[in-house]
Structure formats: structure tokens, C-alpha cells
């Protein structure tokens, strides 16, 4: 299997040059700069230079109360807003003992999984675009549009959702949402088969991804890489299963895993995850209990002094919020642990000796969202 592995530079000519990738480059999907030291077509060092859209969300967290900071969390990884707001309402609920009605927890799971699918669809389209295939993007965005319409109907936003509240969600869903979501699930399954036939089984795609950019489990551990990156390396690490939150323990789903650790493995994990998310949504809709969607929560939230954290499985991996409280209505410290940050930090080691187009495939397979790295 390793024969085709990372074709390394045959003989170092000793002469290198610097190549700037980004900060404005379509393959970096946002403003990320990578300073490449090249030996011909081969990379001797790839140093990512993040920070171009750093907004200092953590300082903003120290300057406004809990409810005021909540919308910030949906703007860190803009493709994963549901998961990020979930972590923040989760840490507040955990620290202050606010109860969440079961119906709200199920709605959180349904909307989170819809968000995961829409995020993976953006990755799917953009990744294929990076590899030179334009058409899948149009298909993926067509499917994603249906999710955005559904979520817009209940949250009012199409991207930076702030649907969760301390103690539940802000709006109950209507029949149109339930019907629409069921229709979407029925429609999406054949679409995933279509993607398998048209894209996954395509020989050109396989040649670009198989045995390219191996990221072994040990490297993931050392760098704290999570999400589809570590699951593509054979580790079944999923916060939904290993640090269970919300009603995930009541739902039946498999953690998608692949063992090769190459770009194809990470691709297959995400494709499989979309199918699993559909399964979760279907079960959650079947079990959706009646009742209120917002529990009792104080008008001004104050957390007891101490240190609390809450982790969720976002589209790109483990997102965790750590709040240090001194008992006031404004957090003393908010730490945002972003999955893309850790996932990108291994790029320098993983891309060494690789050809440039392969390194771009690796970068695409990490599914980076730059505002998530820069925060």
C-alpha cells in the first residue's frame, strides 16, 4: 500500500525558493497564507501563517455577558454554527444547572445534524473543486440549499444560526419543518448514492487521493487533531460517543471510521458521516417528544465561581469552550478550542517532501475553516 506513498524529492538539488500560497488563494478557502520552501516541485517546508482574520473573540467574551456573547460563537466556524452555539449554551447550562426540556434537546440534535450535513456538503463541493472537478459543487450546493431553507424557516438565519438559548431553543418547529426535513432525508439518501457512483468511484479522484498525504493516528494524537482527520486514521474518536452530551446516547448511529489515514480515508469518513447524520435525524424526528422548548433560565445568567468546559463534536472535530467565572454576569475568561487550529498545525509535518498539488489535496482533506483557526 505504501509503494505510491508520498513521492519524495529524488535528490536535493540544495537550491530552494520561497513560494507564497495565499493569503488570497482559492485553494486556501479564506485568508490563510502558507509560506512554502520549494525544491523544484517538492515541498521542503510548508509553514502556515494564520491570523489574517483574527478577531479576538476570546477578549470579546470578557467584555459582554453570557447572552451577549452567544451570537459570537456562531461566527467562529461559520459552517458549524449550531455545534458552536451548542457548546456555549452547554457550558452555561452545565455550570448553572439550567434544565433543558427533552423536546429542545431533540431539536438541537436534529438541527445540529442538518448543519453537519450542510457543512460536509460545502467541503465536498469545495474539495472537488480544488481537485479540478467543478460539477460536484453545483450538486452539493443544490442539496445544501434545501437545508438552508429548512433552517431559515425556524431560525431566521441561513448561516450564522443563533437558535439555541440557555435552557432550550428559541422557537418551536412547525409541521412544515418536520415534513420538509423528512422529505429532505428521503431525497438525500439517493443523492449520496449518486455521489458514490459519480465521484467516489471515479478513477481520477482515487488516483488523486489514495495513498496521498498519510496522517497516522500517532500524529493526530500529538497534534490534537480530531474529527474526520483522526477518524480517517483509524481512531473512533467522536465526542458524541466518548464525552456524550445532549440526547446522543439515546440515538443509534455508527461512528464513521477508516484506517488508511490518507486523503481518501478522510474523504470517505465525511461521506459516511452524512449518511449517519440522516439516520440520527430520522430517529430524532420519530422520537421527538411534545412539550416546551425553553426551560426556566434567569434573565441575567451568572455562573458560580469556578472553571467549566463543554465539548461538542463539530463538523471539523472537537470544539470545546472553557469558561472561567468569578461569579459575575460577565465571564472572567473564555477559551475557545477550535478543531481547525489543531488540524492545521500538523500540516507542516504532514506535507514534508510532498509535491505541491498533493499538499493542496491534503489541505482540502483537512476541511479548514480559516475564521475557526484565527478566531
Amino acid at each position: 500500500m505504501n509503494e505510491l506513498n508520498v513521492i519524495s524529492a529524488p535528490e536535493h538539488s540544495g537550491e530552494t525558493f520561497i513560494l507564497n500560497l495565499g493569503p488570497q488563494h482559492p485553494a486556501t478557502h479564506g485568508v490563510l497564507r502558507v509560506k512554502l520552501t520549494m525544491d523544484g516541485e517538492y515541498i521542503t517546508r510548508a509553514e502556515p501563517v494564520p491570523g489574517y482574520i483574527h478577531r479576538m473573540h476570546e477578549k470579546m467574551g470578557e467584555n459582554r455577558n453570557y447572552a451577549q456573547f452567544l451570537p459570537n460563537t456562531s461566527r467562529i466556524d461559520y459552517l458549524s454554527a449550531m455545534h458552536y452555539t451548542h457548546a456555549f449554551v452547554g457550558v452555561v447550562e452545565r455550570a448553572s444547572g439550567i434544565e433543558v426540556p427533552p423536546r429542545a434537546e431533540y431539536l438541537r440534535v436534529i438541527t445540529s445534524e442538518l448543519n453537519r450535513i450542510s457543512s460536509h456538503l460545502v467541503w465536498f463541493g469545495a474539495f472537488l473543486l480544488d481537485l479540478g472537478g467543478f460539477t460536484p459543487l453545483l450538486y452539493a450546493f443544490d442539496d445544501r440549499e434545501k437545508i438552508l431553507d429548512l433552517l431559515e424557516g425556524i431560525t431566521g438565519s441561513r448561516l450564522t444560526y443563533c437558535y439555541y438559548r440557555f435552557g432550550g431553543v428559541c422557537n418551536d418547529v412547525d409541521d412544515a419543518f418536520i415534513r420538509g426535513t423528512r422529505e429532505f432525508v428521503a431525497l438525500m439518501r439517493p443523492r449520496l448514492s449518486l455521489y458514490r457512483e459519480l465521484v467516489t468511484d471515479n478513477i481520477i479522484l482515487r488516483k488523486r487521493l489514495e495513498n496521498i498525504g498519510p496522517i497516522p493516528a500517532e500524529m493526530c494524537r500529538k497534534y490534537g487533531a480530531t474529527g474526520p482527520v483522526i477518524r480517517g486514521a483509524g481512531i473512533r474518536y467522536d465526542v458524541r460517543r466518548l464525552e456524550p452530551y445532549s440526547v446522543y446516547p439515546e440515538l443509534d448511529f455508527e461512528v464513521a471510521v477508516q484506517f488508511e489515514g490518507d486523503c481518501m480515508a478522510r474523504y470517505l469518513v465525511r461521506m459516511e458521516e452524512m449518511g449517519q447524520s440522516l439516520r440520527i435525524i430520522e430517529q430524532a424526528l420519530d422520537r421527538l417528544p411534545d412539550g416546551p422548548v425553553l426551560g426556566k433560565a434567569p434573565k441575567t445568567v451568572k455562573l458560580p465561581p469556578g472553571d467549566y468546559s463543554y465539548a461538542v463534536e463539530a463538523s471539523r472535530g472537537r470544539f470545546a469552550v472553557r469558561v472561567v467565572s468569578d461569579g459575575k454576569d460577565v465571564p472572567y475568561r473564555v477559551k475557545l478550542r477550535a478543531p481547525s487550529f489543531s488540524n492545521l498545525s500538523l500540516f507542516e509535518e504532514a506535507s514534508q517532501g510532498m509535491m505541491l498539488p498533493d499538499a493542496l489535496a491534503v489541505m482540502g482533506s483537512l476541511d479548514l475553516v480559516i475564521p475557526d483557526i484565527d478566531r
Partner: protein
Amino acid sequence: MVSDPATQGHEESPSPVRILDHAKRGCHLEVVLGPEQVVAAAGVMDENGFALDAVTGVDWIAESQLEVIYDYFHPLNGMRVAARARIPRETPEIPTISNVFAGANWHERETHDFFGIRFLGHPDLTPLLLPEDATYHPLRKDFSGE
């Protein structure tokens, strides 16, 4: 599940290891370390198969101290451990753990950006997220933004 990292040789301060209720705190085990112990503790975490979650800081300006928090998670069983060490605010120095966990490199650089904590032995502490010529540390409580 694993051997406690800092049960040895730290008897002078009261209970350096605390078992926490994950449902309330989001963490299973918390360890208070001296700055000279963080590298050894990282080594213990590494040997027990933990992954590095994050490294971050807290500015305890009233006590004139800075705290460094090392978060770990176990990729196979999900166990969460936090190690914390306090250092004086005037001489904010602590050894780097980037030799144990390569991923600490970026987390420590970020913590240096935000708090001005110098990680001794770190290969490159140039600003990561802040502008390349930044000399300020925005998460210090006395930072005013000029």
C-alpha cells in the same frame, strides 16, 4: 484509568490532584502543578496515550499571577484531564512542552501572543495570530488597546 501524573513529590500543597464530576465541570481530573513539573506531567500524559487538547492562560491580576492550563483528552476512552500551573506575573516563564507534544508549539505561541507568557525552549515564539510586529498581549487584564 491511568496513573495520576503528579501524586508523587508534591505533598506540600493541599491535594494537587482533584477528581471532578464531568457532568458539572466537563473534566474528569484536575492536577495542580509547579511550573517545573509541567514537562514531566506532559510526559506522563503522553505515555498514557493522551492527546493534547489545548494550552491556554488565565490572568489572575489580583494575585499578580498568570496561570497556564494544559488540557488533555484521551482519544480512545474520552477521559479529560486538565493540568494547571501558576507563575508570577512579573517573570512569566514556564518550560515548553512542545518537545513532548508537537501540537503544543502553536498553542504555546498563541498563549505567548495573548498573555506574554514565555515558554522556555520553544523553537519560535513569533506572533501566530497577532500581527507580526505585535508587542502587546490583549488577554492581560490591564490591556487597554492603547
